């Protein structure tokens, strides 16, 4: 029985610790693990983002044309652009286009979101339909607008001239600079509203109804509820959506290129269309790249503005500003 008593003494059994192989040690080494796990992502970013961006920036300082390697010419492209009125027109119109279209999209988008947030019959179907302009490929809607704005066959002109008889001549939507600029902005707003409306609708639905109930008990008006509950609660998502919207609008290309190609007389060139025009059909890759590079500061500024002006943490937590 002694032997069984002896066996009852608990033996702390440990697994024999074998010497770790070098590969195990390597894989246990944190810095290495971090590098190996990040490598695919970094590789993808470098190959598909950093390299093209770097190449574009490098080309902006050369006189590369399609079919000929460029030589380093320093700031010559930028110097030329600085005194090129077409470039400055494009800068002006890009900012104007982005500014006006963003205001329009957010004004109408927010209104639409508030309407859709009410209880309506066929709510889901309505919301799906609202998204249509956003779903249709831009190139298609651009062509549709091209017809709508056609100097000879515009349906708007047809209605005003043939049906209602309030005008004698067709409207020349795209024939003069300012008419063309406003027409393009209208097309861009039409296209951008659904994105804003649906995103803001998502934001609206996260606002707790109890806040409104409390406000109602306090006898608030509709405007007060919007001003002091809806709007502040919506600000964080508004900031994100606005950042995206500004970036999409500023870098818009298809609408303008398909409808006017930057005409009449370059008045509707955005920086993106001008960069493409100079770089690819014009063959002056260096100059096109310089225009594209010149867009970067604007985009950085727009992004920072949205973030710092609209996405303050304290706002989101309901505290007051400093």
């Amino acid at each position, binding site marked *: 029985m002694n032997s069984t008593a002896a066996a009852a003494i608990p033996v702390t059994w440990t697994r024999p610790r074998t010497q770790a192989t070098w590969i195990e040690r390597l894989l246990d080494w944190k810095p290495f693990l971090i590098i190996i796990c990040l490598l695919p992502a970094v590789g993808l970013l470098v190959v598909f983002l950093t390299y093209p961006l770097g190449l574009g920036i490098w080309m902006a300082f050369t*006189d590369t*044309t*399609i*079919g*000929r*390697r460029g*030589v380093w010419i320093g700031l010559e492209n930028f110097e*030329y652009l600085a005194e*090129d*009125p*077409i470039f400055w027109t494009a800068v002006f119109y890009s900012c104007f286009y982005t500014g006006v279209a963003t205001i329009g999209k957010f004004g109408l988008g927010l209104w639409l979101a508030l309407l859709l947030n009410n209880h309506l019959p066929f709510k889901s179907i309505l919301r799906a339909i609202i998204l249509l302009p956003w779903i249709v490929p831009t190139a298609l809607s651009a062509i549709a607008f091209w017809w709508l704005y*056609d*100097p*000879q*066959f515009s349906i708007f002109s047809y209605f005003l001239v043939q049906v209602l008889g309030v005008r004698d*001549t*067709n409207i*020349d*939507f*795209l*024939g*003069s*600079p300012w008419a*063309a600029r406003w027409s393009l902005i209208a097309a861009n707003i039409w296209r951008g509203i659904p994105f804003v409306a649906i995103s803001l609708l998502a934001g609206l639905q996260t606002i707790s109804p109890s806040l409104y109930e409390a406000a109602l008990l306090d006898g608030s008006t509709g405007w007060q509820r919007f001003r002091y509950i809806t709007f502040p609660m919506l600000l964080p998502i508004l900031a994100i959506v606005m950042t995206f919207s500004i970036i999409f609008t500023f870098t818009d290309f298809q609408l303008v290129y398909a409808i*006017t*190609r*930057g*005409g*009449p*007389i*370059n008045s509707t060139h955005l920086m993106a269309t001008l960069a493409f*025009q*100079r770089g*690819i*059909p*014009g*063959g*002056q890759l260096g100059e096109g790249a310089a225009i594209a590079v010149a867009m970067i500061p604007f985009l950085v500024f727009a992004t920072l503005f949205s973030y710092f002006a609209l996405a303050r943490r304290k706002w989101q937590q309901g505290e007051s500003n400093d």
Partner: protein
Amino acid sequence: MAFIITRRQGLALTGAAFASAWMAQQAAAQIPRADVAAPNFPIENGAALRVIRPSRFVEPDEVIWRENTAKFTRETGVDVRVDFVGWEDIRAQTGVTANTGAGPDIVVGWGDDPHIYADKVIELTDLAEYLGGRYGGWMSLSEIYGKRVRTNNWIGIPMGGSTGPIVYRKSAVKEAGFDSIPEDHAGFLRLMQALKRINKPGGFALGNAVGDGNGTANWLTWSHNAFLADEDGRVAINSRETIAALNYMRELYPTFVSGTLSWLDPTNNRAYAAEEVFLTPNGISLYYALKNDPRTRHIAEDTDHAPLPKGLSEKVPQSATIINAMVFRHTRFPNAAKQYIRFMMEAEQYDHWLTQCLGYWSHSLRAFSNSKVWDSDPALAVYRNGMDHPFWSGYKAPITQASATVSAEFILVQMYASVASGQATPEAAAREAERRASRYYRSRG
């Protein structure tokens, strides 16, 4: 120039193409040819070729091209793959091919391309001289676009060109009190004013339209004896002649139908087909589209073509959009490539192609002026000499990347458009065009 060819029409054309394939031989028989021995290009063993060319706008262009290519493969055993590339993409693809030294052996690209890549293509002088000798010599635009500047060395084989003369409604011009399109500026202006008065206006594209816009600008420039740059590539657009052209534009513009400042390439076709415009420069495609559609046939019957008004120029101030075949140095089968181009240019194949394209391409070799296609319809007359013009894009300077950029950037179009719209004075517009053009003609160190 734009291209309204419906599918139905295309199918009809295809049918006609096959039905008449057997006739090709007989039709080609009326092309006069000199007895010149074909040059000896022994085809390399195991040769295979890759060809790219611009996509078609009339269906037979592709169908007959492929048919002729298949015939080449049957006769020589050389496999040829032909890819049809979009009009806006082929220039970039040619550039990549030239830069990387890989890709298609033969590029049938735009007229300027062999000049831009002159160091990357093989010389085709022997082939060009044979074809010229056999088929009555080359048209003048072929010589300009085929030969390396200031030499007799051929670097491209121009295969055809498409032009945009005046397309007009006979009845409208008659109603305006004219029997034909006047050749002088003042007369043409009077015609346009009269058309406007009877509410059947004409119109010239002044938007950023690659073909039509540049066509308008070149016509105005050349018909006033102005030119973009001189023989040495010095920009010469800011001249008295240009100012005169711009002043003329200012008088002409009010006679246009409204909206021409935003016209892109297809716009004038649509407007003409809808009887909103009664005179406009365009390619032959418009006429055929009208003729083949029963609803618009009456327009076609009332349509005629005339050369662009000469104005002060001695020759018709017109150029052409040219397709130019070039063989890149990197090809492993230069002889097979030359044989392929020769084969496609020989009357048995070329005339068939020309005839079935119904005049869409004007021929580059003089002998084909006798092709049946030009007698098939009296309205085609002006297109017969489509390649026989002494003007080219960037006239009088050598064809380079700079001239290509000036037209792709619409520098001249915008010069005229800014004056037409009243945005700039003629002097300011000419100065601005000079500034922009000088940038691309600047010497490269």
